[in-house]
């Protein structure tokens, strides 16, 4: 099978122009912003593991499809469309600027005899390849099983094929809609705005899109039955939700859409037409302009004084580390995007809580859902910041931190701990206070906030275990860690823990004795962990990563004959001679 696919790909590649092949391969490796990853990272392995997570999700989906697709077709189809759109949205955000050639591209490619259309085409093809891989990884199992089960109920003899075609057309349409929408917005922004304003707006749009995709996924109402879809009070939501448009499109093609919902499918067709033509037009018009503007942009742009008044949070070392972390996070697009992933979920949870608070007519008792939500927000904030701290900003500039290490490592570790506290636990505590204003009695609210604060500090101490580093100076090595185990393990562990903690805490808050015990245990754990970390830090050596030699990417332009001395036969012969 593998050989067959390779042979097919080779046959397809043979028909492609050589420039296309080379540029496509080059841009495919750069679609994802790899600067966020370590230079030592095993990129193909990382992408393979990412695909593995999607395939795992796909298998879980197929189990759900097997049990429920016949009973709840709309609910499951909507869920699959939403999840596919979310994954496509995340990929679109991560590869946000990859469609436009950057300065390096232009400096290298502009002197060569390559038409701008070829660059645009190969960039689009590279993005499409990644989206296609994600689509296949996520949908192969449910996308074959679901149509097979539903197709058997179909009156037509070709029912399975019709449902299959409908499923894949709707999924591809949903991804295309999302991707072309982003391209249209980017193209228009590039066309209208000056280069500098475009770059500024593009960064903001990227974050907004990220938050938007995740918020919509989590906050969208669950309308999974035909009566719910047909209910007049839900029409407004259906009208503005693309997931439901493509749900209707899927069912229109497979022939099971009630006529009352035909207007939704019509919206999907309209939307596809608009965004595809919009993307083509705006990209064609803006591409040349962007290339020229990028080339002509001045190297040195006058800056403003920025934020100088960062709060003094202790020693000059603490200030230096905190300011460095704040500036790195706020100015590096790669780091912002990774952090935004966590913060978007926090924002979605916060909005859900806020909605409940706004719609309440009178103060309410503290609900378990709020306790769980606040634990989750705290966890995501700390874990997100700790994760982003592990992404380097400029490994080759680390020499400065190494030559200026004038205080013991434990002080650096302490500064990192304080930075984590200031930028994760404190904002979450403020948010928790604001979100709990409608809950009574106040005593219970204060009791919960007390537990939450200790929980946050505990998380920080956990995050600091073996972290003998300055934020943003060392690499996380995707591809070298087992992303499968880490991802699923973390999801399971933290979900169980927060559910248990939330349910247990409500009982504890009602009883002074139990509450004191809980607080006592948490404080004991905090002191133990803190003491362990501080004890370890006494002998720790601050770790900085050096820049390893750059990897050479082979584009297959030259035939490099194999080294005869490294052939298996010769090696075996040498081995036997040595023995």
């Amino acid at each position, binding site marked *: 099978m593998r050989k067959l696919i390779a042979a097919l790909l080779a046959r397809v590649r043979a028909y492609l122009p050589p420039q296309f092949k080379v540029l496509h391969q080059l841009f495919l490796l750069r679609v994802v912003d790899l600067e966020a990853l370590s230079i030592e990272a095993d990129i193909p392995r990382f992408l393979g593991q990412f695909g593995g997570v999607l395939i795992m999700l796909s298998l879980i989906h197929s189990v759900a499809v097997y049990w429920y697709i016949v009973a709840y077709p709309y609910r499951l189809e909507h869920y699959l469309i939403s999840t596919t759109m979310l994954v496509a949205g995340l990929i679109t955000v991560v590869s946000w600027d990859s469609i436009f050639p950057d300065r390096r591209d232009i400096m290298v490619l502009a002197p060569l005899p390559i038409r701008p259309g070829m660059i645009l085409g190969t960039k689009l093809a590279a993005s499409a390849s990644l989206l296609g891989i994600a689509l296949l990884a996520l949908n192969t199992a449910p996308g074959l099983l679901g149509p097979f089960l539903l197709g058997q109920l179909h009156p037509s003899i070709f029912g399975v094929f019709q449902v299959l075609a409908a499923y894949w057309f709707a999924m591809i349409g949903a991804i295309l809609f999302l991707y072309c929408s982003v391209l249209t917005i980017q193209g228009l922004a590039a066309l209208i705005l000056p280069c500098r304003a475009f770059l500024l707006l593009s960064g903001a749009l990227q974050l907004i899109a990220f938050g938007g995709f995740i918020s919509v996924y989590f906050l969208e109402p669950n309308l999974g039955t035909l009566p719910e879809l047909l209910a007049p009070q839900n029409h407004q939501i259906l009208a503005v939700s693309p997931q439901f448009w493509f749900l209707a499109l899927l069912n229109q093609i497979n022939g099971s859409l009630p006529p009352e919902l035909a207007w939704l499918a019509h919206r999907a067709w309209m939307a596809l037409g608009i965004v595809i033509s919009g993307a083509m037009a705006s990209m064609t018009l803006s591409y040349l302009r962007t290339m020229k503007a990028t080339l002509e942009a*001045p*190297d*040195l*742009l*006058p*800056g*403003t*004084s*920025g934020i100088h008044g960062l709060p003094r949070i202790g*020693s*000059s*070392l603490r*200030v*230096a580390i905190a*300011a*460095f972390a704040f*500036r*790195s996070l706020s*100015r*590096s697009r790669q780091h912002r995007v990774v952090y935004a992933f966590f913060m978007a979920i926090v924002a979605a949870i916060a909005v859900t809580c806020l909605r409940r608070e706004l719609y309440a007519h009178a103060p309410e008792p503290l609900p378990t859902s709020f306790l769980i939500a606040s634990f989750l927000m705290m966890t995501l904030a700390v874990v997100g910041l700790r994760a982003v701290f592990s992404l380097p*900003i*400029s490994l*080759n*500039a680390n*020499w*400065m*931190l*190494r*030559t*200026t*290490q*004038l*205080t*013991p490592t434990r002080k650096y570790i302490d500064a990192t701990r304080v930075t984590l506290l200031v930028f994760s636990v404190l904002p979450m505590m403020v948010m928790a206070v604001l979100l709990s204003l409608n809950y009574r009695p106040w005593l219970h609210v204060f009791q919960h906030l007390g537990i939450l604060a200790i929980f946050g500090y505990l998380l920080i101490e956990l995050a600091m275990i073996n972290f003998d580093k300055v934020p943003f100076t060392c690499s996380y090595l995707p591809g070298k860690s087992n992303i499968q185990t880490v991802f699923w393990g973390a999801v399971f562990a933290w979900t169980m823990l927060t559910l248990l903690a939330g349910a247990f805490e409500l009982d504890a808050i009602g009883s002074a004795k139990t509450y004191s015990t809980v607080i006592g245990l948490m404080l004991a754990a905090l002191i133990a962990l803190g003491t362990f970390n501080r004890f370890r830090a006494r002998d720790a050596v601050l770790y900085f990563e050096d820049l390893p030699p750059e990897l050479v990417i082979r584009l297959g332009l030259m035939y490099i004959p194999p080294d005869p001395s490294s052939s298996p036969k010769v090696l075996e012969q040498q081995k036997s001679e040595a023995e």
Partner: protein
Amino acid sequence: MLQLRRVTKHFAGIPAVDDVTFSARPGEVTGYLGPNGSGKSTTMKMITGLIEMTSGRILFDGKLIDDDIIAYKRRMGYVPEEPYLYNHLSGAEYLTMVADLRGIPMRQASKRIDGLLRLLSLYEDRHAAISGYSKGMRQKVLIAAALMHNPDLVLLDEPFSGLDVGSALVLRSLITELAARGKVVLFSSHELDTVERISDRVVILHRGKLVADDSISRLRSLMQLPTLEAIFSQLAVEQDTASMARTIADLIDA
């Protein structure tokens, strides 16, 4: 005084610096010369503590630098060969960060940073991101960061790289002025003319080995050669440069 005693560094078994011994004295400018790949920057990195020696000893004021590396780093200023900086910071932010890491009191740091930025003609662009700085501007930021804390030992690895003529002349005078104020100055450069003008003594490295360590005037008289360039060519340049140039021209002309 900075002393290197039989310092050796091997990379994967290959000697980059081989049994090098020399001293740099306070009040003197010591030029450190050698062709590309001769081990100059490796030696500089070992002196700063950025990389470890395979063997040998480095002493500053009679004490092994590893005995109290923090105290040593307090007294050292270093300009690396490549102007690698945190590009997302502005020039002013970078220098403030260095000052904070070095524990320089805020008021004093602010005064020195402003002064250095003005004198090095960076003041107008102090809030612009370093990513937009030219090579010369980056070099000036490095020089400011290296000197801000008034170090006793100044290590300059290709400090003139990218500097315009005016700035290079200022730096040349600054190096001699720093030495005149009793500091130990060790600097490497490929600009032999500059080295000849400002150095009291030179150390020449070739293929990782020390081939000369003396005052320029003594080297001139010993080798009976008129200039440092001639001395350097004899000690460290193996090829016939004119013949090589002809070969290159022939190759591309063929």
